[in-house]
């Protein structure tokens, strides 16, 4: 079976600093996994490494998706982020970037075509070539359908991507992009962070509405509360750059009750010196 994301012995560093230290995880399509860990444990680093962020270098280990080696590519970084996206991987960012001057509608249509009509996207720089992506009317219908599904105000479509968006609006736009692209494997990085309870419920409904039996999900979160709304089949605990404990949904409740120090005791790790340190997560700058 090749419709799975296989992470094996993954070591990742940023600059001189080692962030992931031998991480093993397999997520199959149709499965929902939650990856929990304190700040600085390497959660976002894993998400970035999976998508090929240029600052996150894989020092050792393997990354394969649907049997293809993601580390095999034109540069030391392996396959480019855009190629990974065209193969069905999707990352919902913890801190999505604003793209001033580009409307949500224009952005969605461009990314839809890039993923689902990649040839047309490659040629779009040539003004002489007629655009061959999804017809405008058909795209509009798709977008409106997904916006209705996520209960989003149609006015959203004419705003510039993430510019002046509240935290909740940014997360909802991530979900809208996921719904429009319908990826085979979605990595959701702290999609619950910065949301009040209503916004959290709203976003979680969006995730549930978008999930399909064919989709794999890796949900990265600091807190258990998100998992009340989106139920994982598997829960993993990330500490010091490795997965140190795995279980079913009940593990998230044990974590909520006992904290990460309890995990350290259970698995015999030293006191969490790294738990407080923040991972170097780039924040969108304007």
């Amino acid at each position: 079976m090749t419709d799975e994301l296989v992470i094996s012995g993954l070591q990742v560093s940023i600059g001189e600093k080692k962030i992931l230290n031998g991480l093993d995880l397999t997520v199959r399509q149709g499965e929902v996994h939650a990856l929990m860990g304190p700040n600085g444990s390497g959660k976002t680093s894993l998400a970035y490494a999976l998508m090929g962020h240029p600052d996150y270098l894989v020092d050792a280990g393997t990354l394969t998706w649907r049997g293809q080696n993601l580390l095999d590519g034109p540069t030391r970084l392996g396959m480019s982020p855009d190629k990974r996206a065209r193969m069905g991987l999707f990352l919902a960012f913890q801190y999505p970037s604003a793209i001033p001057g580009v409307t949500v509608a224009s952005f969605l249509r461009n990314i839809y075509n890039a993923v689902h009509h990649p040839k047309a996207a490659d040629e779009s720089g040539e003004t002489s070539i007629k655009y061959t992506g999804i017809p405008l009317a058909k795209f509009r219908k798709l977008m409106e359908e997904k916006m209705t599904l996520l209960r989003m105000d149609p006015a959203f479509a004419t705003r510039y991507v993430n510019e002046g968006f509240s935290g909740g609006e940014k997360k909802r736009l991530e979900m809208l992009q996921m719904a429009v692209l319908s990826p085979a494997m979605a990595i959701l990085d702290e999609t619950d962070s910065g949301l009040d309870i209503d916004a959290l419920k709203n976003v979680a409904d969006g995730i549930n509405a978008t999930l399909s039996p064919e989709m794999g999900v890796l949900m990265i979160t600091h807190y258990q509360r998100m998992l009340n709304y989106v139920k994982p089949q598997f829960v993993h605990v990330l500490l010091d750059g490795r997965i140190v404990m795995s279980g079913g949904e009940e593990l998230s409740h044990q974590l909520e009750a006992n904290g990460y120090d309890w995990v350290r005791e259970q698995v015999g790790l030293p006191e969490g010196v790294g738990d407080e340190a923040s991972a170097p997560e780039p924040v969108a700058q304007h």
Partner: protein
Amino acid sequence: MTTTATAMTLDSTAIGRISDQLDEPNWLRDLRTGWWERAETAPPPTGQEEEWRRTPLDALPRGGELLLDAPEMEATVPPPGVILTDLATAVREHPDLVRRFLGIADGPASHAHFWALGQAAWTGGLFCYVPRNVTVDGTLVVRTVLPRADVTYLPVTLIVAEEGSSVTLLEEVVSPDGPAGWFGGIVEVRAERGARVRYANLQQLGDGAWNIGAQRVVVGQDANVTTLNAEVGSKVTKVGMDVKMIGAGGTSKVLGLLAAGDDQQIDINTVQDLAADHTTSDLLYLSALYDRAHASFYGVTNVRHGTRQTSSYQECRNLLLSPQAGAEPIPVLEIEANDILRCGHGATAGAIDPTMLFYAQTRGLDRDAAERMIVRGFFEQVVAQIADETIRERILTALADRIGSTEDVS
């Protein structure tokens, strides 16, 4: 209008021969002679001037042949009462009107020599006249195509919007790639009391062209003027612009879009002259710079002594799309008045935020496509202010040659 091969070198005998060729009236001969003398007494820039430090003129092709016959010009047919024609025809058909407005004022101080030279030696150009209280619907479009690259051509564009009138005009100039040539376009926009003018200038000169332009914009009482200069072509561009807010309650928007690559040098200097009460002048220039292109911007806001409640802003933003590209935005505020509403500036130059690029790439856009989208979005800050659809489309099409196109849904 047809183009002949007739040409001459720009020297002191040229002025008389231009007048002979065009069979001009005496007032115009005298006007040209007067401006020629001015050109001789106002020497060319030495490179020591603040506005000229970044654009040396050593290689300006001064020896090229002067294009004596105005090149091909396509123009919209204007509504009755409105004049839109080449300047020589306007001199023949509307001499009294042209005489009232042509060559009556100085241009930007930085370009005094070139302004005088153009007023003396113009062989083509445009005359647009909108009478009092006339509103021109739609967009007037004038397109000039130079026949050759290696010529000297100094046209004068004169746009006069009388009291209470309204007009939107796009002027395009195109020349072939090739050896060095000199294009010295002079533009004067006069918006009388309460007039509304939208003027766009789209420059698509060939890769050997030296574009030494000078523009004077006069905004009268309660008048409202938006200018847009889109610099796409040329080897070297050095445009000086003087926006004079002379009547109370006047408003101006001074917009610019630059897309440059290869070894292009684009250098703009502006003066926003707030000389009357309750005037507003906002400037926004955006550059996307590829390869080894370099853009300079030297903008002066001058709030005159004794004026009250003026509002002004100048912003120059540069996107560097190659490590070899460069930009130098220099804003200067000269505030002589005490009672001002606002006077500010902003200047930036930098590469695309790599976080933004990564974000777009994770959505399936390859690096080039992501970059094109981000640049197009960057330009939107100005493009969104172009209300006229014809102008917006022509300018986006011209820019697409450099930045590429992304289809647009909204």
